[in-house]
Structure formats: structure tokens, C-alpha cells
């Protein structure tokens, strides 16, 4: 290494800077908000932010990360979230056991992923269009099932037990949803970055033809990819409906673009621009921090979006621009 150091230094530093641009931006924005936004640098703000904004989005974004790593996209994450949420609330409302309700909700979400993979594998529809179709149908199904989109509220105290079990119980004072997120992060990390599954996923993402010509069961792996994404969305849906103790039709739609955004922001930290668990989590934190900070600065909702857009451009432009220079 020492031999080459001299010649490599200028190129290496530019390249390493480009990887670090996301971190630098993250820390920079953090410091900026800490100084300017009142109430930002505050433990309650952070724990509230993580509990309410980060956990749900992060779990969905993990699912999206798997799909994007496999070269696909899942536009139907909202449907998985909502249908799981609907099933969960309906089961609880009908007086079923909480654990049973969770299992049914996750299975319902898994069916969305199964539908996606059937469309992709059997009908050879591009993931974008397959999941878009499922998104349209899923929206209508919810509206039909709730007479046009009327939310189901379970605020009466007789229903409180299962919700409290999910949201309030804590180990050493840590809320359960956060523990669920940690479990999901570990599981997806192991599968994607340490497991056989991850190898197949990255081969599919890099060059599907090579995966096929290497004797990989491409349809089976794609099914795993889309089902695991939907299951993660289902988990997020259960957490969501437990938090608000209700099912609000189409509430899951809000996660779609943020999940895609977080995943792609996350690719900026890897040299090959590959989606990664760590990158995605960083992307989720980045987006949540931007929203929170701009809100605390007193920017109204519409200007928040402009602010987020601009900051994302600056960060990604910086990191990819520097990389291009380095190359």
C-alpha cells in the first residue's frame, strides 16, 4: 500500500470525500438546526421524532432497500401497510386475540407481496408496472371496504390492552416499536449483507441475466424479495395502527416516496452506489431530521417540501459530483 500511496492520494481523497459527503451534510444540517431551530437539540424532541417518524418509515424503507437492491421497485408498500393495518384493527375490533390479529395482519401484507411476485414472475410484468397496478387496486379495495374511506377508530378502553402491549411495553424503558425496528435492522442486515440471500439479491440487481445463467432460482428469489418487503410493511402497519388505535384508509401512501428517497440517499455512502441497510437508515434519519428541523424553524408545510428537496439535491449532487470528478 505504501508504495502506491503517493500516486493514489489525490484521487483517493476526492473519492473518499464523496463517500463522506452524506455524513458531512448530515452533521452539518444537525449543527445548523441545533443552533437555529429552537427545541431541536432536546432529548424529548429526538425520542418523539424517533418514535413517531423514524421507526415506521425505517421499517418500510428496509423493505424497499431489499427490493431496490434486487433491481426492482415496490410502489405498493402503502397497500401492504394499509391492508395489514385494516386487518389488524378489524380483528381487534371483532374481539380476537392480539397475537392472532398481528399474525393475520402480517399474512395479509405477505399476500400483497405474493401478488406482486406472481405478476412479475408469471406474467413477466415489469416490477414498476406490476406494483403500480397493485397500488391502484389496493386503494380501491380499501375504499370499497370502508364505504368510501371512513376510518375505523377503536378508542374505547375495552380495546386498549393489545395496543398498549405493542406501544407502551418497554424493556429497560425502551419502547417496543424501537425494539422491533432494531430487530428488523439486524434481520435485514444479516440477510442482505451476510447471507446467501443477499448474494442472489445483488446478482439480480447487478445483472439478472448472469443470475439466470448461474443456475439461480430467479423467480423464487424475486418472490422472497417482494414478500419480505411486504411483510416489513405489514409490521410497520401494525405499529402504525397500534399507535393511533385506528385504521385510516390510504394512510400508508405517505411512506412510499420517503422510503424510496431514503434508500437512494443511502446509496450515496457506498462506492458502488448500492442500497445498504446502513445507508437506508441514515437516509431515513436524514429525511426525518430535515422535516423536524424545518418545522421547528417555523417553515410552513409547503415550504418544508421545498427545503427538503433543495437539501437532498445539495447532498446528493455533492457526493455524486465529487465522485464523477474522482473518476
Amino acid at each position: 500500500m505504501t508504495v502506491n500511496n503517493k500516486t493514489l492520494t489525490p484521487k483517493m481523497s476526492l473519492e473518499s470525500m464523496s463517500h463522506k459527503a452524506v455524513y458531512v451534510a448530515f452533521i452539518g444540517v444537525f449543527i445548523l438546526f441545533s443552533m437555529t431551530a429552537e427545541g431541536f437539540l432536546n432529548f424529548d424532541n429526538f425520542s418523539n421524532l424517533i418514535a413517531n417518524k423514524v421507526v415506521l418509515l425505517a421499517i418500510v424503507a428496509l423493505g424497499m432497500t431489499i427490493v431496490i437492491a434486487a433491481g426492482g421497485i415496490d410502489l405498493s408498500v402503502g397497500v401492504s401497510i394499509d391492508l395489514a393495518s385494516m386487518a389488524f384493527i378489524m380483528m381487534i375490533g371483532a374481539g380476537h386475540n392480539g397475537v392472532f390479529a398481528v399474525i393475520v395482519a402480517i399474512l395479509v401484507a405477505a399476500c400483497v407481496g405474493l401478488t406482486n411476485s406472481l405478476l412479475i414472475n408469471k406474467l413477466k410484468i415489469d416490477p414498476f408496472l406490476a406494483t403500480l397496478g397493485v397500488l391502484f387496486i389496493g386503494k380501491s379495495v380499501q375504499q370499497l371496504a370502508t364505504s368510501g374511506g371512513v376510518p375505523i377508530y377503536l378508542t374505547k378502553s375495552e380495546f386498549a390492552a393489545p395496543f398498549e402491549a405493542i406501544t407502551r411495553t418497554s424493556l429497560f424503558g425502551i419502547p417496543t416499536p424501537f425494539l422491533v425496528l432494531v430487530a428488523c435492522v439486524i434481520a435485514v442486515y444479516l440477510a442482505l449483507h451476510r447471507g446467501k440471500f443477499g448474494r442472489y439479491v445483488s446478482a439480480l440487481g447487478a445483472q439478472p441475466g448472469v443470475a439466470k445463467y448461474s443456475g439461480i432460482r430467479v423467480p423464487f428469489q424475486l418472490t422472497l424479495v417482494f414478500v419480505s418487503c411486504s411483510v416489513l410493511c405489514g409490521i410497520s402497519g401494525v405499529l402504525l395502527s397500534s399507535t393511533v388505535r385506528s385504521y385510516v384508509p390510504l394512510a400508508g401512501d405517505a411512506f412510499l416516496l420517503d422510503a424510496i428517497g431514503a434508500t437512494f440517499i443511502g446509496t450515496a455512502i457506498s462506492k458502488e452506489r448500492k442500497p445498504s441497510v446502513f445507508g437506508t437508515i441514515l437516509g431515513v434519519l436524514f429525511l426525518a431530521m430535515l422535516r423536524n428541523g424545518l418545522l421547528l424553524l417555523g417553515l410552513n408545510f409547503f415550504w418544508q417540501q421545498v427545503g427538503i428537496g433543495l437539501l437532498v439535491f445539495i447532498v446528493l449532487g455533492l457526493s455524486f459530483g465529487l465522485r464523477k470528478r474522482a473518476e
Partner: protein
Amino acid sequence: MNSVAVEMRDVSKVFGPVKALNQASLTIEYGTIHGVVGQNGAGKSTIIKVLAGIYRHDEGSIFVEGKELKSITPKIIEKCGIHFIHQDRLLVSTATVAEAIFLRNEPTFGPFINHRKMNAQATELLQRYFDLELDPTTLITDLSTAQQKIVQITRSLSQNAKVLVLDEPTAALVTKEVESLFTVLRRLKEEGIAIVFISHYMSEIESICDTVTVLRNGENVGQVSPKEVGIEKIVTMMTNRDTSEMYPRRNVEVGAPVLEVDNLSLASHFDSVSFQVGAGEVVGLAGLLGSGDKEVLQSLFGLLPPDSGTVSIDGTSHKFRSPVNAVENGIAMIPEDRRAHGVAVNLSIAENITLASVDKISKRGFVNRQEEIESVDALIEELGVKTPSGDMLVRNLSGGNQQKVVVAKWLSCDSRVYLLDEPTVAVDVGSKIEIYGLINRLAAEGKGIVFVSSDFEELAEMCDRVLVIYKGEIIGEYEGSSINSEQLLAAASGKKITINRSAV
């Protein structure tokens, strides 16, 4: 009449380390049909692309009607009346015949296309040149391939083409259509148009060309008349070169059969194909484009499941419905399109090598990185992949080294039978020699090898046996050191010629 239309003099073109053209010359006269022949990589397509203005030549000069062209772009060339009919049809399939002929030259009435006039002119042109009654409002999709070629030619003629260059015009045509196309070409020749005809079908070259320019390794080895010298002489000119250094020898005793193919058939691709490959044996399949040689390989690999017939590996018979079964049962494929099917260039060398054998280095679904690094490093060392480490991206490797990664992938899962589909396509000569070394190594390890290549010299030199496949059937088998590329080429072209062959 015989005045020179185009002269290309001492044209050279270098791609990286490869000299695609080395002082090649081409002289085309009006009123003649001029063949350009050569093996793959001989420089046929390069010289044509230089003339078309697609590539810029490094040296040499090009004259049109005696005047030197200083700068060449596709537009200037078209203005000179030189038109190209490319191999893959470039007509808009939803257009009508008249629209295709007059695309971008439509007769207009103010800002509008005058359809009536356009259709009438199209009818007239088709009739004048080809005696062809074709409704000008027919859609291109509804035409036969031969008719589409004629529409393309008509389009060129409508723009006053004086030189027509046809690249493999008969590749997708059936015999009858070829005849009608030849009638058209002869008629155009009578009209004084110069025609450049590129084909690897020797029988066609013999029947239609007045003169032939033979290219070999980017140089032209002569301009001859096929009627005077005969096709055998041309084939010899195409293939003859010093081969002693190119092809490393191997000394392997052929063992018991590893692959037995019995009566394998697939409708409209191949019929009743049977052969055996022994351990350590390299068996070539020699066929021209569309002969079914590639489809046989794809069937053996489960990509194109056959209609009937059996495939046995080490005596056990199998039915391969997908590459998954084929790989599990010890079949390996070195595909022609390396970047689409062979290696994922944006993954690391290690990830590529272990892709088909992750199971072996995994426990309960987790990859054992230590074991992976050890086995990958061993393979990198064994095959001599030029890289500092297995974590490098495959993108950074040369073509030959990428091919080694593909081979390493199959070595790591102990494949028994290797299917090689054009393994040396698009690599430089040095890499070719390395790939031949790899083939010999595989043979020495007792693998069975099926080798498909359109470079017949390579087949002749590297194979223990070569099967010639023509229109989906095996029509000949050549064995031992007596195989030579001339007889393979002649046999694969469907041309029966007798040079002392050792057919079985």
C-alpha cells in the same frame, strides 16, 4: 462502364491493442457485384463501417469517383450516392411501404404529405426496378423479410443510390427469397449500379459475385474472381495463417463419456441431434448463423427445453427444464454475451466466482467469508486472474480475465460438462491464447467440453472432434489432427466439396 466507384486505399483502424484493419484496400467498380469475405474479426464490418462514416480510419485514404474524401460522415457518404442495407432491418414496422420508401423525402403539398402522389411514386419505383406489384399501403410488418429488403433497396434507389452495400442480406431469408433477391441484384448490376455484398455463405458468393476481396486479420490478402479461382481457393485465403503459436497443444487421454446426447430435437431449431463427449474431450459444433448450433447448447443448459430426446451426464439421464437443473447436475455455460450473462461487472470478482456455489460456502444461510476468500484466492491464483484481490470489481478486468472469472465460477461448483458459446468473441489475441489454455486445462481435469464458435480455424485447432451442423442437423463429423477450417467452412455452408476429409 467499368469505372471505379469507390476506392479505399491502405486503410488502417486500431481499437486499443487490436489492429482491426491493417492497410486494407477495397476497389469497387460500377456495374459489378463485389463480395467482401473473411472470418469473424477479419475486418469485414470494420471496413464497411469506415466507408459508412461510422468509424474514423486512422490511416489511408478513400476516393469516390476518383475524388478523395477528406472528412467522412454518414451524411456525406449518402450524398455521394453510397447506401447501406444493414443486416438487421431498420424499417419502421408500423409504416406503410410508401412511407418507408420516402421517409424524410415525402412528396409534399404545402406542409402536408401528398399521400396520393407518394403512393403512386412508390408503385412506379417498385415496378420499374423489380417488376413487383406491391400495394404501397401495405404495412411493413405484413411483408416477408425478402420484401422488406426490397423496400429498403427501393428506398436507396429513390435517393439515387449508385453504390449499394448489403451486409449479410440473406441471413434471415429462405432459399426461394434468396433467389428473388439475387434476381433483383443482377438487374441492378445491369443498370450500372455497384453492389458490395457481404456474406459468409460461400455458395452465395460464388453464384453472385464478379469479384471478391478477401480479408484476413485486417489485411487484404487479395482480390479474385470466384469463377476463375473457385471457392476452395478463397476459403484457403480466408483461413490460412500461421497457427503454431496461437493454439497451445494438449495431451489428454479421452476417457469415458460424461455427456451423452441422444436424438435431441426442438421444433424449428434442430432435429435428432446425437453425440457423446468423453472426459477430457473437446467437441466442436460448427455451424453458420441460424444453423441451430447455439440452440443445441441452450437446450443442453435448460434455456430452451427440447421437445424430445435425452441428455445423460455420467450415465444418468436428465430432463433440463431450466438452467437451475442443468447447473445442479454439473453443466456449466460460458455464454457468448459475457456482460449480459457471464459476469456481473459491477459485482466483485469473489461475488461472481461464488455465485453458482454459495451453498458450498454457506451454513444455515450465512456466507462464510473466510472460506470464500480462501477458495476465491485459490482460483484466482490457479487461473492467473490479474487482480490484486478478489474484492475488485469485475468491471476493472480485461475481457480475457473476465472470461477466467466465468470459468472460475464453474470450477468452484465442480461442473462436469462445459458448454462454450463463442468464448473468444471480442477479446484480443493475447486473451484468446489464454482462453485456449483454459480450455486445455479443463480438458486435462477430465471435463467434457462442447465448443461452439463461428471461428472455424479455432474449432479445427482446438477440438478433438468437430460436428458440422447445417439447418438443424448434424451432417458431418471430423476427427483428429486432420480437421481443417476449410472443410468445416465448406461443409457448414452446405457446399459439398471434397478435400481429403476424414468423415466418419
